[in-house]
Each structure stands twice: as structure tokens, then as C-alpha cells.
């Protein structure tokens, strides 16, 4: 029977009460350690389709009669459309429709950033649509853009109120501290650059709208479009079977989807709207730049007594305040903490979530200033972290925390320090640094799954979830196979279609596996229970003596029957198990933790930096697929190396125009930039967290990488780098500053 309960739902630290239907009693967690399938390396179930070029991404969908759209985007950072004429475009070859400001809400006549959508055209071919855009006549009134986030804060121009947090008495603690360090850190704007750009195809079927979209959130897109167009939610069907990366940027419908829906309505044809790479790097979001003015204070024994930070997020024309202040509030046991966060509204493209938004930036500042403090106190950086270990969150108990064990596992890597430094030679100075990680990742309800078991003894997991490349489908297959005692090649996973499966969670916030895994397990358990009930009746056994093992129903008296014989009684019909994600532990906070140790070499003459080795030790509860998990960790670290050393979205400070919109000018890491990466996952199930004990892993590995590298650079050279990316210019500036400081502090000689 369906049981309705009231429970807490947490998304990246924000709690709300929700109603939840739970359909059966909770299952006991599996014992710690690998099972038959869960906890053992599994090849990606979609691997062959993707590797053979058979997977059909949104980019590959071609519907009969499909038109192509192109969007006219503002060439100015801040402007007003005084007059616009679509007529010449409508008369161009192949053009079927054109829309301008106000004809759909996402098209504006007052763009606030370069790249904001103003008009759109649908034509028989993409190049016809692009050519027609050139004919649209616009009379622009160009305005003076505001590009300096500090100036926006001074003017009170914010996208939301400043958020303030204080515990204890920071001013008193600072006055009484033995050592105080103050420093300003800066992080740059980083572009997601998913390989598949944002794109959608919209097709109306009467009053129903089919949306094929590259998305991380099938249900979020459904609800957003339904609300905007005044449709009942299930009149909108959202499909995303294969998806070419998102990293946080694809949680919404975005302008291109609304443009495609409107043009499809006007033409009666399916319409595709796909961003070019250059549009992607203007209009699809970014990790916003930050300025962090931080203070850390300690007693002479290293006990932290105060942490304070003023954080300015260069949010852009719209967006939300990602939690740059979060790590400072959460990572250490410090009685006195004060943070202020200003989300500045400026004439740059809006931010979107990007893999641990806010925490990547905030961890860079916090974990660097902690090492600056340790250097001043002449304390070992690993020791100061242990000394100030927070055994619970500030306001509620943690469901589990094994960061101290991560530190213990980091020791042998940290102890390589002397040997690494000793390999310094000529201009190449070597050093080791570390940084800790805290992030969310507990997932939560609601999330649902079905498991269908056919008479051939094959199971199908059905849920309207998207696999954004993280290996979700594989993890779900493993969980179902483990519960059903089937080999994994007898479990299929069908996902990616809001009309063909139950509600599933958004793939964001490291929540997919911890939200969906328990739902899939409970669905599989429900199917397994039915198999046993049927077998008990057919073979005249008591249910309590029957269990599933190795594809068989086995009896404690030695009898056994293949599952396909039992389900085969139903002929073409199937058993259907339904499962729901249960609630998170009431009153507790679920967090992920970890530590990374980086080894670097710095050429002190040229400022060149090479990352030579990164060790990642994370605690994310039970690990479902160690192979896929190691890939996730490597990917996070490589993206981290990108924003630490080379990636930087550049804006012309006069006009607000983005100068590097291409993958040539915007420097992603290549295979030649990748260091040795060592992954260690503790694999300790969180005993309080659902029937799996698994937390999410998508985001934790990118969080501490930049700070670990910057701290390794300090270890190698004595220089305090405080700005990302650590370009050669920044490296040489920090080296010169370190030399000046050394001169000033050296005893006078005669």
C-alpha cells in the first residue's frame, strides 16, 4: 500500500519539506564491501553504442520535414533594440518563419549581455536560416555596460540580496588571535564547453509538444515548458536518450528550446535549434568569476579562532548566488565565522551551475589561506587540518564523515614531499600540496523506478532518468542485477523519456546514484519478492525457505528452478516491481569529503607549471562501480587542472565582448596535459543513508584540485599564487612578490 510521509528534501544545502509516497518497507543495506556485482568494476552498458557511433544523441535526430532555426544574438553587452525589421529575412530563400522581441519570452529588445537572444528564423536548412539572420535590420541603441563586479556591489546592483552568515564573535576572536592572515583571492570565469552544444528539437502533435533535448533534467524541462506555455505537464514529452555532457549547464529549457517550440507552432513542422560553439560560449552559462577577501586567524598552537570572508560573485546579467561562502562555513571546527556573499549583476553572460558551483571557487580561497596560515605558524599543512577537524556540521549531525581516514590514507603521498622537493633541478622547482574537500551529494526523494522481469529471465530497469555521461545506466543495472541475482548482461536499462517511465531525479548536485540507486534496488526487490511468491505457489514451497541465487530460485532443502521457468509461467506477460527512494535520515546532514595531494614542477624563470601527480582520496559512501568511479575522479581532476592553469573566459573591459569564444582560443586541457592520477575511494557505506549507503561522486573530485596545486606551488617556490588561472604572468608576479618579501624580511647585513 502507498504510504504518504512528510520528509525533508535537501538540494545543495537548501532544505524544504516535501510529501513523499513510499510503497514498501525499507530494505536492509547490503554488507560493506563488494557484492557479486555491486562494488565490482563494470564496463559501461552503453559503451559499445557510444564507441561504435550508434548512440543517437539529440544532435543526431533528424525528423521528417524538420526545419532548422538560427538565433540572432545581441552583438552588444548592453543595448536597446530601437527598431527591428524581420521582413527582409522572411523574404529570404527557404525561410518559413521569423520571430522577434516579445513574440516569445526569451527574445528581448533590451539585451543585457553579448549573446542574449533577440530574434530567430526557421528555414529549410541551417545555412539558409543563418543567411536570413544577416538580413534582419536592427537599429541598436548601445548602452554603457557595467562590467566591474565591485562597482556593481557599490551601486547595490545585485541579482539577489547579499547573504550574511555569522556564528560566534569574529571581531573579538580576531583581536585575541596570535596570528592573523588576510589575503585576496580571485577566480576566473570558466566555460562548460560540453562537447554536444545545447540543442533541442520541438514537434507539436496536436496540443502535445515533443521535446528532444540535450538535458540533465528531463522533468525540470517538462515542468518549465509546461508552465511557460500554459500546458498540462504531461502534454509535454521530453526525450534525452544519449547526452553529450552538461557539467551543470543543462538543467533548464533555455532560450533555444522556447525558440524551437514557437517556430514549430508557427510552421506546423518540427524545428531544431542548436547552438554553435561560439553561441555556446556566450549564451549557455559559465562558472562565474569571484573575488574573495579572506581573513584567517589562529592561536600559536594552530587552533583556528576566526574565519571571515567577503565574497563577490560576478554572477552576470542573471543567475543565482552559488555558495562561494560554503566551504568556509562547513569545512573546519571554528567557533567564529562570518561570511558575506554579494552576487553582482553585471553585463556579462549569466552564470549557470558548473560542477560543485561556488564550492570549487570557495575551496580555492579557503584552502590556500589555511596553508598561508600554516606557513606563518610553521605548522605542517596536513597537521593544521587535523587539528581543526570538524566532527559534525555547525547546525546538525552528519550521517557519516570519514575525512580523518582520508587524511590517514593521504599520509604516504604527503610524505613523498622531501623526495619530490629533492628532485628540483635548475629552474625547475618541485613541491607537494594538499587540500580538503566538502560538498553535498546525499541525493534524496522523490525518485522512482520500475523493474520489469520477462519470461526470458531478462530484467529491464525503467525510469525517466537521463545518463549525462556519468555511467548512471551502468550503476542502475548493477544495483538491479545484484538484487535479482542475475548476471548484468541480463539487465537492460531504459531511460530518457518522460512519457515512458516514472519520475526520476535531475542529474545535478551529485545526486543521481544516491537518489536513483535506492529506488532501483527497491523496485528490483519488489520484483524478486513476486518471483518467490509465484515459485512458492507453483512448486508448493514455503516462501521463507526460498531465495534468489545465480539466476535461480533456490530452496533451503536443495531444490532450484531457473527464474525464467518461474516467470515463464506468465508467457508474454511480465512481473513489474515498483520502487521509490525513501527519505534521508531525519535531522541529519549528508555530506561528501575528501583530500587531494598534488605534486608540481615550476620553472621559476618562465613561470611554466607542470602538474606531475594528483592523488584523490574521497569518501562518498558505498562505491557501486569502481571502474566508472575512477573515471569520474579523473575527469573532475582534469577539469580542475584546466581551470587552475589555462582556462579563462576573457572579456574586453571596455565593451564587454567575449574575446575567446572558440575551442582554439579558450584553452581546455588536452591529453598531453594530464598528470599521473591516483584514485582511492574509501568505500564505506553510510549506514544512515537509505538502502544503499551511497553518496554522489560527480562533483567532489573537482573541488580541491586548484587549491592543492596552488599549495604545491607554494611548497615548491615559496610564492603565494592567489588568482586563477595561474598563468605564467600570475606565476612570475607571485615569484617576484615572494622575492621582495624575502628581501624585506631578511636581517640587515653590513
Amino acid at each position, binding site marked *: 500500500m502507498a504510504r504518504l510521509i512528510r520528509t525533508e528534501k535537501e538540494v545543495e544545502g537548501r532544505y524544504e519539506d516535501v510529501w513523499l509516497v513510499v510503497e514498501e518497507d525499507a530494505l536492509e543495506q547490503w554488507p560493506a564491501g563488494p557484492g557479486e556485482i555491486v562494488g565490482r568494476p563494470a564496463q559501461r552498458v552503453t559503451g559499445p553504442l557510444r564507441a*561504435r557511433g550508434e548512440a543517437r544523441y539529440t*544532435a*543526431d535526430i533528424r525528423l521528417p520535414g524538420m526545419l532548422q532555426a538560427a538565433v540572432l544574438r545581441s552583438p552588444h553587452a548592453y543595448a536597446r533594440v530601437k527598431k527591428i525589421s524581420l521582413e527582409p529575412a522572411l523574404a529570404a530563400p527557404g525561410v518559413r518563419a521569423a520571430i522577434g522581441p516579445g513574440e516569445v519570452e526569451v527574445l528581448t529588445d533590451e539585451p543585457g549581455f553579448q549573446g542574449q537572444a533577440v530574434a530567430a528564423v526557421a528555414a529549410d536548412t541551417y545555412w539558409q536560416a543563418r543567411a536570413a539572420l544577416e538580413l534582419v535590420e536592427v537599429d541598436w541603441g548601445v548602452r554603457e555596460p557595467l562590467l566591474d563586479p565591485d562597482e556593481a556591489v557599490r551601486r547595490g546592483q545585485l541579482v539577489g540580496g547579499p547573504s550574511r552568515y555569522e556564528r560566534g564573535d569574529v571581531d573579538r576572536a580576531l583581536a585575541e588571535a596570535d596570528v592573523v592572515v588576510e589575503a585576496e583571492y580571485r577566480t576566473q570565469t570558466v566555460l562548460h564547453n560540453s562537447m554536444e552544444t545545447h540543442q533541442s528539437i520541438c514537434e507539436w502533435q496536436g496540443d502535445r509538444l515533443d521535446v528532444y533535448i540535450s538535458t540533465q533534467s528531463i522533468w525540470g524541462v517538462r515542468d518549465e515548458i509546461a508552465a511557460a506555455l500554459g500546458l498540462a505537464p504531461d502534454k509535454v514529452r521530453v526525450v534525452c536518450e544519449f547526452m553529450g555532457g552538461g557539467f551543470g549547464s543543462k538543467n533548464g529549457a533555455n532560450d533555444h528550446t522556447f525558440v524551437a517550440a514557437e517556430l514549430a507552432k508557427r510552421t506546423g513542422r518540427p524545428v531544431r535549434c542548436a547552438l554553435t560553439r561560439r553561441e555556446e560560449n556566450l549564451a549557455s552559462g559559465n562558472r562565474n568569476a569571484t573575488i574573495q577577501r579572506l581573513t584567517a586567524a589562529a592561536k600559536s598552537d594552530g587552533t583556528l579562532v576566526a574565519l571571515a570572508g567577503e565574497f563577490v560573485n560576478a554572477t552576470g546579467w542573471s543567475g543565482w548566488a552559488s555558495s562561494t561562502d560554503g566551504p568556509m562555513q562547513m569545512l573546519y571546527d571554528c567557533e567564529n565565522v562570518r561570511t558575506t556573499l554579494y552576487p553582482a549583476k553585471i553585463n556579462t553572460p549569466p552564470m549557470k551551475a558548473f560542477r560543485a558551483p561556488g564550492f570549487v571557487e570557495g575551496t580555492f580561497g579557503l584552502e590556500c589561506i589555511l596553508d598561508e596560515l600554516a606557513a606563518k605558524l610553521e605548522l605542517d599543512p596536513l597537521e593544521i587540518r587535523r587539528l581543526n577537524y570538524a566532527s559534525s556540521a555547525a547546525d546538525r549531525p552528519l550521517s557519516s564523515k570519514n575525512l580523518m581516514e582520508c587524511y590517514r590514507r593521504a599520509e604516504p603521498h604527503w610524505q613523498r614531499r622531501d623526495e619530490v622537493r629533492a628532485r628540483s633541478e635548475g629552474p625547475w622547482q618541485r613541491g607537494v600540496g594538499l587540500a580538503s574537500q566538502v560538498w553535498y551529494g546525499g541525493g534524496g526523494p522523490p525518485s522512482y523506478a520500475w523493474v520489469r522481469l520477462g519470461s526470458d529471465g531478462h530484467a529491464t530497469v525503467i525510469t525517466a532518468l537521463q545518463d549525462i555521461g556519468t555511467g548512471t545506466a551502468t550503476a542502475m543495472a548493477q544495483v538491479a542485477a545484484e538484487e535479482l541475482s542475475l548476471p548484468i548482461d541480463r539487465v537492460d536499462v531504459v531511460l530518457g523519456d518522460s512519457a515512458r517511465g516514472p519520475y526520476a531525479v535531475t542529474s545535478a548536485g551529485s545526486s543521481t546514484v544516491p537518489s536513483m540507486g535506492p529506488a532501483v534496488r527497491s523496485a528490483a526487490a519488489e520484483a524478486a519478492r513476486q518471483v518467490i511468491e509465484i515459485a512458492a505457489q507453483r512448486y508448493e514451497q514455503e516462501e521463507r525457505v526460498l531465495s534468489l541465487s545465480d539466476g535461480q530460485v533456490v530452496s533451503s532443502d536443495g531444490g532450484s528452478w531457473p527464474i525464467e521457468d518461474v516467470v515463464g509461467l506468465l508467457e508474454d506477460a511480465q512481473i513489474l516491481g515498483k520502487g521509490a527512494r525513501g527519505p534521508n535520515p531525519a535531522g541529519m546532514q549528508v555530506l561528501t569529503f575528501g583530500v587531494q595531494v598534488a605534486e608540481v614542477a615550476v620553472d621559476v624563470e618562465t613561470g611554466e607549471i607542470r602538474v606531475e601527480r594528483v592523488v584523490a582520496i574521497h569518501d562518498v559512501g558505498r562505491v557501486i562501480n569502481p571502474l566508472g568511479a575512477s573515471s569520474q575522479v579523473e*575527469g573532475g581532476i582534469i577539469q580542475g587542472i584546466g581551470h587552475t592553469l589555462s582556462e579563462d573566459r576573457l572579456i574586453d573591459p571596455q565593451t564587454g565582448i567575449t574575446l575567446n569564444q572558440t575551442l582554439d582560443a579558450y584553452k*581546455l586541457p588536452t591529453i598531453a596535459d594530464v598528470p599521473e592520477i591516483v584514485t582511492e575511494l574509501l568505500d564505506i557505506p553510510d549506514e544512515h543513508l537509505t538502502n544503499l549507503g551511497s553518496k554522489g561522486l560527480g562533483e567532489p573530485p573537482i573541488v580541491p584540485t586548484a587549491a592543492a596545486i596552488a599549495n604545491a606551488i607554494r611548497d615548491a617556490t615559496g610564492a603565494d599564487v592567489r588568482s586563477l588561472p595561474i598563468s605564467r604572468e600570475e606565476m612570475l608576479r607571485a615569484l617576484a612578490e615572494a622575492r621582495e618579501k624575502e628581501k624585506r624580511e631578511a636581517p640587515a647585513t653590513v
Partner: protein
Amino acid sequence: MPELRINGETHSVDVPVGRTLAETLRNDLGLTGTKIACAEGHCGACTVLLDGVPVYSCITLVHTVGEREVTTIEGLREHPLVAAFVRTDALQCGFCTPGQIVSASALVASNPDPSTDEIRHAMAGNLCRCGTDPKIEEAIATWQG
């Protein structure tokens, strides 16, 4: 009307001058295994072979292909590299993967036992935003099983 030799078959394609090979493969011939991620020759997702040499098909005009044999991922589906990429988990979202495998196939054809440096040199023109690079290196280093 140019004739193209693709994966051992001959195709007549009636497309205007100026069309790229990538667009022709994907839009005119339905060979969507070749991906377009930047459309301006920067990322390698669209890599195909012309007479065994990897090229970016998004900046190769179809009328310049001539007699050369075009090999796309559809022609390499049984190549041992495909199994090696799956075995080593050398793909995440998979959008760059066909291009990676096409590039790697050219490398191992001329150099069946490439060193780490040779792999990195040959593959640096294929970007992977998911960061599967260590696994790609492993897949190519162990492609023969």
C-alpha cells in the same frame, strides 16, 4: 555531382560546393557516428580518415575529397580499438569518442605499439571535456588485448 568512396562503398552525393564532408556524412548520408562539436577544426570530434590519414571533416570541403577513401567510425566498428575503449572505460558522455577512435586507428596502423609520448602526441588534437584522457591512453596502449 561528386562520387565519394566511404567505408568501401561508393556514394553519389548531390550537394552544393562549399558543403563540408562532416555535414555531408551526417545530413546527406545519415552517417551520424561522426560528430560535430565545434565546426571549425578545433576539437577533433569530427575526425575521419582520408586514405588512412586523419582529418577534421568539419573543415574538409566535400568537393576536395576526390578519389580518396573516406573511413568513418561506421567503417571501424569491428576494430579492436572499439572493444579496448569499452573495456578500459575510455569514454564518458561519448560524444568525442568516435573521433578519438578514428584518430587512434591511424596511429596504431602506422605504429602498433606506441609509447606514451607517441599516444599523447597523436591524440592531442582530440579534445575530451569529460576528462577520459588517462583511460584513452590506456585503451590505445592495450588495444591489442
